[in-house]
């Protein structure tokens, strides 16, 4: 069945309002706190951990629907890390090699 126009517009309005509020409100709250020691410590400590969590979460999404993709995903992640550390941290190259490895493995080997 096809949902009505007003339902679709309602979803768009909700997604817009909530997403924008989640992104904007913390800036307003943090502004007076920018000099505080807690906020400074968190802004130093948080990025690397959040990035690692995002990496782990997207890795999990990759294998969530196909459990047999675990081995290709581990190999491709290994290729990504190796390429990044050995070939001078060229992100485009590392991401390209890692992704190509995964695409080739799941399409041609697994």
């Amino acid at each position: 069945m096809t949902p009505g126009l007003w339902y679709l517009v309602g979803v768009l309005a909700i997604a817009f309002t909530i997403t924008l509020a989640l992104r904007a409100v913390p800036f307003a709250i943090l502004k007076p706190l920018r000099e505080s020691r807690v906020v400074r410590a968190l802004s130093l400590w948080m990025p690397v951990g959040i990035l690692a969590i995002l990496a782990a979460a997207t890795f999990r999404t990759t294998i969530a629907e196909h459990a047999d993709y675990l081995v290709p995903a581990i190999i491709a992640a290994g290729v990504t890390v190796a390429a990044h550390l050995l070939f001078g941290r060229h992100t485009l190259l590392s991401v390209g090699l890692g992704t190509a490895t995964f695409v080739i493995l799941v399409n041609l080997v697994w």
Partner: protein
Amino acid sequence: MHEQDQSATGTRLGEVRAGFAASLSAGLGVFPLGIAFGLLVVQSGLPLWVGPALSVAGYAGSLELLLVGLMSSATPLATIALTTLLVNFRHVFYAFSFPLHVVRNPVARAYSVYALTDEAYAITAANPRGWSAWRLVSLQVFLQSYWIGGGLVGLALGSVIPGEIEGLEFALCALFITLTLDAARTRAQVPSLLLAGLSFAVALLVAPGQALFVAMVVFLALLAIRFAFGRRTGELA
């Protein structure tokens, strides 16, 4: 991406170029995912305009993929609202270190907040220095155009051919892996990495359905404990 520190010429064109250069590697993940999103919209049977409309109104990749499924099954609006809140709640943490303070123009500032996606945050988190208003906003404009462009290509492809290239979505994971490596260059970052790993493991055990969100909450809680502990031992005084 790491050429950007040297190419900071200060001119507007130079800054836009640096923003473009910083956007490229993320684009490799964002564009194919946009195609996947466009294909999903075609398959869902929703009107095709919903694709680009979602990418403008609720600009957040993973949420959009989720919403397409929820909309096609006419999920109640209250559930849509709660899902949006939970899935995107992690964005509240990004204000801690996103360099919004370099953007002075109110319109550009509003756009920069509106377009604060995982990828935009991740790129600034991995390269914290050297951001100017033009560089930051052009980075975000390029990222959004990859996403919308990919979505349109997906709509076109989905209307013409069946099937897709399996496995392209790994680009997003590979991107976050390289950004993590870039952010973790000194030994001082090791405790944060270990706490993040612990948080994700806890989240997988406690709430596998909301692992991303729960992992971030647990991680923040552990950092708060670390701060309290550090202050008591005089490390941060």
